[in-house]
């Protein structure tokens, strides 16, 4: 256990798997795997974008034999969406890091690790005899090599074309169409939106303070999450004000020195695990950190890991933590 005195809740079930990971920083693999082009993002009419993107991305090429479709994925966000749709991937790159960064939904034990996503093991991949291989912009340079094994489709959430949550919704629908699970995708999307709406109502009643969501890089630097990222989108959707106002990069974070947090004033602080073990004790020895309102009044919460660069399942996981605290 940690020496410092912040609230660190106990956990149950699979969600707790990574909690005792003694090391680690918040740099999730997924943070690096998503997105490719740095295109400026402007909030457009959300619904229009959603519909348009879904139509663009879908291009249903495969017959609707979803139950038997074997899909290999080079991306966590697409993998978690597939699991939510009831079609777990047969192979996933970096599968070994899942329990550390994604945690939920649980990756079925049968999912084969395809190796490093920058150079997935084609011999292993071919032996799985996939019907479809899903990539993102980020691993696109392998598409030519992969296409000798199975048809390759690319779906990217973090490409800057729309705020992450909106794009995640569009990609969910597109993916559903692609694998013949359009109905499931629509249902899952509706379920997610209903979940967010419910939380928004409860939060409005409870009257929540603004929050600052961050990950520690080391004892002096943090990542703060903001628009157009997934976390910021979720906070909007569930009616909690994000204390970090500046627009961030297209993955929705900004790396800042800790002292910059002072400008967020009275906001509560949500820290995502894993936290480098020396970070909080080191900061605790300096007045600057101790005097932050959230720290001083014990309103800093360390949350279990949630993929900040994921799709709707990760968004719901974070929404749960943000509403109900770490014990959710």
């Amino acid at each position: 256990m940690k020496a410092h005195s912040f609230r660190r809740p106990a956990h149950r079930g699979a969600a707790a798997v990574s909690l005792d990971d003694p090391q680690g920083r918040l740099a999730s693999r997924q943070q690096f795997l998503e997105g490719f082009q740095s295109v400026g993002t402007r909030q457009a009419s959300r619904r229009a974008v959603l519909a348009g993107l879904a139509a663009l991305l879908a291009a249903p090429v495969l017959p609707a034999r979803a139950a038997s479709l074997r899909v290999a994925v080079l991306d966590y966000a697409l993998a978690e969406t597939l699991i939510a749709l009831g079609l777990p991937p047969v192979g996933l790159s970096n599968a070994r890091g899942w329990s550390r960064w994604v945690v939920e939904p649980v990756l079925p034990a049968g999912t084969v690790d395809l190796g490093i996503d920058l150079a997935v093991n084609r011999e292993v991949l071919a032996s799985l005899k996939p019907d479809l291989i899903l990539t993102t912009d980020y691993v696109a340079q392998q598409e030519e090599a992969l296409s000798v094994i199975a048809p390759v489709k690319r779906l990217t959430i973090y490409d800057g074309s729309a705020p992450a949550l909106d794009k995640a919704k569009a990609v969910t629908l597109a993916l559903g169409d692609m694998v013949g699970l359009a109905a499931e995708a629509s249902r899952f999307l509706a379920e997610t939106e209903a979940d967010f709406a419910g939380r928004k109502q409860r939060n409005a009643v409870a009257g929540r303070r603004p929050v600052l969501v961050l990950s520690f890089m080391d004892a002096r630097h943090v990542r703060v999450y903001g628009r157009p990222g997934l976390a910021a989108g979720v906070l909007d959707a569930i009616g909690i004000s994000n204390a970090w106002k500046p627009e961030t990069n297209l993955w929705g974070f900004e790396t800042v020195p800790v002292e910059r947090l002072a400008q967020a004033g009275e906001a509560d602080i949500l820290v995502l695990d894993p936290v480098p073990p020396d970070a909080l004790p080191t900061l605790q020895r300096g007045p600057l950190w101790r005097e932050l309102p959230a720290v001083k009044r014990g309103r800093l919460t360390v949350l279990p890991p949630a993929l900040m660069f994921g799709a709707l399942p990760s968004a719901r996981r974070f929404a749960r933590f943000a509403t109900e605290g770490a014990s959710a």
Partner: protein
Amino acid sequence: MSALRQPIGPGALSLGLLAATLATGVLVLLPALREAAGPLPVAAFDHDRMVLLHSTLPRLVMALLCGAMLGLAGALLQAALGNPLASPTTIGTDAGARLALALAGLFAPALYGWGRDLVALAGAGAATGLVFLLSRRQGFAAVSLVLAGLVVSLYAGALAGLLTLVEDRYLAGLLIWGAGSLSQQSWEPASGLAIRAALLLPLALLLARPLQLVELGEDAARGLGVPAERLRLLAIALAVALAAFVSASVGVIGFVGLVAPAIARAAGATRVKNRLVWSAVLGGLILLLTDLLVTLLAGPFADFLPTGAVTAVLGSPILLWLLPRVSRGSAPPIKPSDPERARRRPGRGALVLALLALAAFAAALLLGHAPGGWGLATGAALEAVLPFRWPRLLASAGAGALLGLAGLLLQRLTANPMASPEVVGVSAGATFAMVLSVFLVGAAGAASVTGAALLGSLAALLLVLVLARRSGFAPERVLLAGLAVNALLDAVVVVLSATGDPRAIQLLGWLAGFTANVSPGSALVVAAGAAVLVPLALLLQRWLALLPLGFPPAAALGVPVPAARATLLALSGLAVALATPVIGPLSFVGLMAPNIVRRLGIQAAGAAVLASAACGALVLLVADIAANALAHPLQLPTGLVASLVGAPFLLWLLQSRKAA
């Protein structure tokens, strides 16, 4: 003041810098100061005042302190080695500390205080020692020392790169550390570093006078009763400690240790003691000014920009400025080569190497992880995996041959066994272009990236050729120009990575050299390149035999020396340009292969060309087999595996003396 021999003088220069620093400081601090001077706010938490007192002010002190320590470290190194290019950045000290801290972050992340210092010290000391071992043969000549420093730095970087790729959750933290951020949240680190500086500074000043004598030359100093060897060692140890302490508290701040002593010297501080003092003063002011300017120009809402990365970007061109000042008279003294006999039949050695490479190729085609386990694939199973294996192996073999060839050409051209394609800047040019294509254009396809790499390396080659043309393509100039290009690339990569941009890991992927999913097309291009360029080099073997004799004898025999040099340089550049997109800039095969061939006694130019190409192919094929077997199903990057396995071997080769 006796030190002032020129009109400017370090004192006046420091005053000027101080004025600039104060002006910038006022600009940066004015809002906060005005706030602090106003009436005390009623609210309990005054965040501006807190930030001013516990972040901004300690940061200023930290900048001053770190700059001074680095300036002093650089001046000490330069005096001890009699080498104006020496600095913690250029001789591998920084890179060693960075790697050690990265390892500590992985295995003992809770370290702080003296624990971190010890880790940084160990890494810095080990890397510096390695550089000395490598350049000992050349008598620590300026260029050789810096070349060895670059090789060790690149190697440490490669090691950290592999760690990052496999254990990438640490990536962001490591990268920030590597880039040296001065941001502070309390006075604790600054006061801790001040204590360390206070312990070391008097020692450095005590060394000043005897070091002055050592500058006369080791023998002369010994004649005057100064234990030169021990003194040098002490000065170097001191410098390493200073740099390591800085690295441990704020990360790597590049080039301040090179720039401050250079400016102090240029401003007229000629005696050792003056150089030490003024280097510290100037170093402190330079870093403080840089930090203030970064704060001022970047503004509070700009992307995160570590100051250490900025000094590196600004500082690497200084290397270029310094080069003309050292290249004359810094030619390594002629040393007897290793007491090994040249082979009577070098052609046979080359043939054996080629056969070995062929055998490795065949073995790698057949051997591998099959669904049933590791083993030989035959029949249908082989047919199933062949399409995945042959492009990978062909690309590895081709790239290895090209790099082996390029390395041999460059080593012959420069008569320096530490020369390699990695250090002429051509690899860096290729990487640079790939970075640009991804970060600016957003290119995604393999074809566009390869095209960019080719363009980039050709551009770098052209640049080096133009820079070196005035000197008749003097080999040292070529190496040094490449060195500066490399340093600049490294700095830019560090900046891009430190922002936490997820594309940085893709960049790391290229640097690492994944061959696994090379397209058949690229594999064929690389192999064809090797098949054309190696025979072409064979045609020119007479030049390769004559050019190492130096300009006058070669010219006296009627060799058109500048044209011959330019041709061979272009040939090696083309080879690197073809190989880099596949294997990345860090494989060190271009350094290893020619040295192995030399140690095997294959000296005749023609045989050496063949043997070096074959040896390069062999090394990369073996690395490829290892990369695929070590961590199944992970396919590790072949380029990095080659350098990790090969570099220690190379070191052993360069050091071991074969019994005559």
